[in-house]
């Protein structure tokens, strides 16, 4: 590595270190005086310029044609670090497991898939409600996507039941973002939850969520809060949860990848540094494969 490449060879018992020098200070002081001259008088700036130039030239002299080093005497001692802690305890999950919490997990994509499926499923009861109660396909979309805001503060019934592009876009963005996030969260927490993931995620979580929304929707989106039919809302939420849970549960679980180095897991590959490390990572994988599991 460069750190030893650059140093000139030093005789035994010595080490070559960069030699101390005052030139950087002279340069800095020169710049200070230049600046000070700007607020006081040009003469000071001139002095500063002289100092700065000589500082710069002096600095050049330090590094040209080669960096100046000084020799420092060095005593080499072996150092054997010791700890007062004599042993390391382990978490006992099973005999060969040391440090990686859940052993298997639904993959991240499983959660996302669940979220997507749930999000699509949820559209059905929501739209159904609009169709049944108001004979409109767009009612639910418009409620979510912007009625009650700014120039659309008090839409008429006709307006809410008819297509409006901005509302569709807003609603789609909100709905997609929330579905994906909830799916992700769901996928991530599933392995940590006790049994009955579908019951928990499909029934209990939606009820909790609806409760929270019921309490806070008047502020988040008061118009939606006024117009919403809570039974249908709960039904939609449960539809989301059931479908998402079902999809996530259907996905194959994969083993935790904790033991791979970060770079390997992310799949970072850039020439030079990484290539070799990747190689090394592969070695270690087989290595810990034998040792750890």
């Amino acid at each position: 590595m460069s750190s030893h490449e650059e140093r000139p060879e030093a005789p035994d018992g010595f080490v070559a270190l960069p030699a101390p020098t005052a030139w950087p200070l002279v340069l800095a002081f020169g710049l200070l005086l230049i600046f000070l001259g700007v607020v006081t008088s040009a003469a000071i700036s001139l002095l500063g310029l002289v100092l700065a130039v000589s500082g710069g030239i002096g600095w050049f002299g330090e590094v040209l044609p080669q960096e100046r080093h000084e020799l420092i005497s060095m005593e080499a001692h072996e150092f054997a670090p010791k700890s007062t802690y004599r042993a390391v305890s382990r978490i006992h999950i099973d005999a060969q497991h040391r440090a990686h919490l859940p052993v298997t997990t639904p993959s991240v994509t499983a959660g996302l898939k669940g979220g997507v499926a749930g999000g699509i499923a949820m559209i059905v009861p929501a739209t159904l409600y609009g169709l049944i109660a108001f004979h409109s396909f767009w009612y639910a979309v418009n409620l979510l996507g912007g009625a009650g805001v700014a120039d659309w503060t008090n839409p008429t019934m006709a307006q809410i039941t008819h297509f409006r592009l901005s509302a569709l876009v807003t609603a789609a963005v909100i709905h997609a973002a929330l579905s994906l996030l909830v799916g992700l969260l769901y996928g991530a927490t599933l392995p940590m939850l006790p049994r009955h993931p579908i019951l928990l995620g499909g029934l209990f979580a939606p009820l909790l969520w609806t409760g929270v929304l019921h309490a806070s929707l008047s502020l988040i989106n008061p118009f939606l809060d006024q117009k919403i039919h809570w039974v249908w809302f709960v039904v939609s939420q449960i539809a989301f949860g059931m479908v998402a849970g079902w999809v996530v549960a259907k996905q194959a679980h994969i083993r935790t990848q904790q033991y791979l180095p970060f770079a390997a897991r992310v799949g970072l590959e850039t020439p030079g540094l990484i290539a070799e490390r990747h190689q090394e990572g592969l070695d270690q994988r087989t290595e810990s494969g034998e040792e750890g599991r």
Partner: protein
Amino acid sequence: MADSTLPVDRPMELPGDLPGEQPGFTWLETLHTWVTTVDHKKLGLMYIGYALIFLLVAGVEALLMRVQLMVANNHFLSPEVYNRLFTMHGTTMVFLVGMPFIIGFANYLVPLMIGARDMALPRLNAFSFWMTALGGFFLYYSFLGAVGLQGAGSAPDTTWWGYAPLTERAFSRGHTMDYWALALVMSGIGTIGAAVNVIATVFCMRCKGMTLFRMPLLVWLNLTTAGLILVTISPLTAAQIMLLIDRYLGGHFFDSQAGGSPVLWFHFFWIFGHPEVYVLVLPAFAIANEVIPTFSRKAIFGYPAMVAASAGIAFISLGVWAHHMFTVGMSAPGNAFFVLSTGLVGVPTGIKIFNWIATMWGGKIRFTVSMMFAVAFVAQFLLAGLTGIMLSMAPWNWQLHDTYFVVAHFHYVLVGAIVFCIFSGLYYWFPKMTGKLLSERLGKWHFWLFVLGFHMTFDFMHIPGLLGMPRWIYTYQPGFGWEKWNILVGVGAFVQGIAILLFSFNMVRSYLKGAEAGPDPWDAWTLEWATSSPPPPYNFAIEPVVASRRPLWDQKHPEDPDWRYE
């Protein structure tokens, strides 16, 4: 550069041993070794010492302000003096205390932690220090040298934001703003130099086996910070140059008379100003990242996530600056965008807090003073972050902006997080730097007094903010219910002052007659503990080779080394 093949045509000096640390040397020679040094450890110590001095100076400025605000309609300070005090206090604390502290720690620790003998560019390192240091003295010279609006002797007095057009010639005659701008350009050059150096060191000087993902988190965070500095301090420097062009050459960048836009300055300042606060806080996180695992006796939880979160914070922080400008009159979509981006900064920050808690979880926590400061930091930073979230809700910000609620928020981070981490780091590495342990008994007094003072000052400071007390006011009328809180706040500031005095005493006393530290007093795991305290000029006689993130752990527990699992 690898001119290894070049023959050594220059004889090497043979001073042999260290002047200044030998009994036979005069103080002048000692001074000479410090002034001409290019050693990263000496420079690191100089940065830290310099920051400590300015902490006292700016702290005294804060105390004077608090005395003035203790009662309504006070006449202790004139408005001119008060305005200079808060401007100098803010500027000093950010540029001459916070920055030197973090750069000092980076300078001292990064080479040691990656097993190098020095920084990559030792002479640039010295130059950067002197630029920062002289920039600070230049700023303070304005107290004597600047002829301001009110006659002789005057310092910058337009807040550390320096909002245009108040800083233009038309409204700030005299030279105070020139001192301010030039001083910040100077120390800015120093800071950028230091950042360049950290980056080059990390990329080029790592010892054998020290891959990027085996670097201690402290090194990672300082690398991130250095990268952030490059794109953060530079805009400030650019904006200051524009201001100087306006003031000296008659330009119109921020001159509203000629169609110039003050809002441009607001943007430029906050494009610097917001990431700057993360420049300050990331190295503070870095300290906690070393202290918390050591005293919990556990590896850091989620190392890759911590790295990613730091990068995430640095990245997102570049896109949130206008949350300081919600009241400037941005469009509704603009405001909404900055609400969202600001909120998202909370996510990687949250990851860090959760990971620290998870690191402590299941550990055997040793409450040394260093660890106490680190734990207090986590708690306080949590609260401070949450008040940040409140401020980021644009409509609420229209009420809270420029009140003492904001002042309370940012002191909660700047003092409650950064200063606490710096104390934590000083208790942790003082033994390495000097070879002496700091007294734990005095340290506990220091800790509890400082916690008490901190909470008295900055908890209660939120309340006058909610009651409508704006910042930057040297006086106020009675009857708004602010008085009682201001008394508490003022008393708290003095308690902090006493705690800091105690700390200074602790440092001096422990340096003179503290207990010997030995190379590894905390039973820690990173490379700096693998050499004597203080380390020799060459750091390591034999250049280390590492196989994992915790090389000393591997040695201490050969039956269960990390390299098997990483």
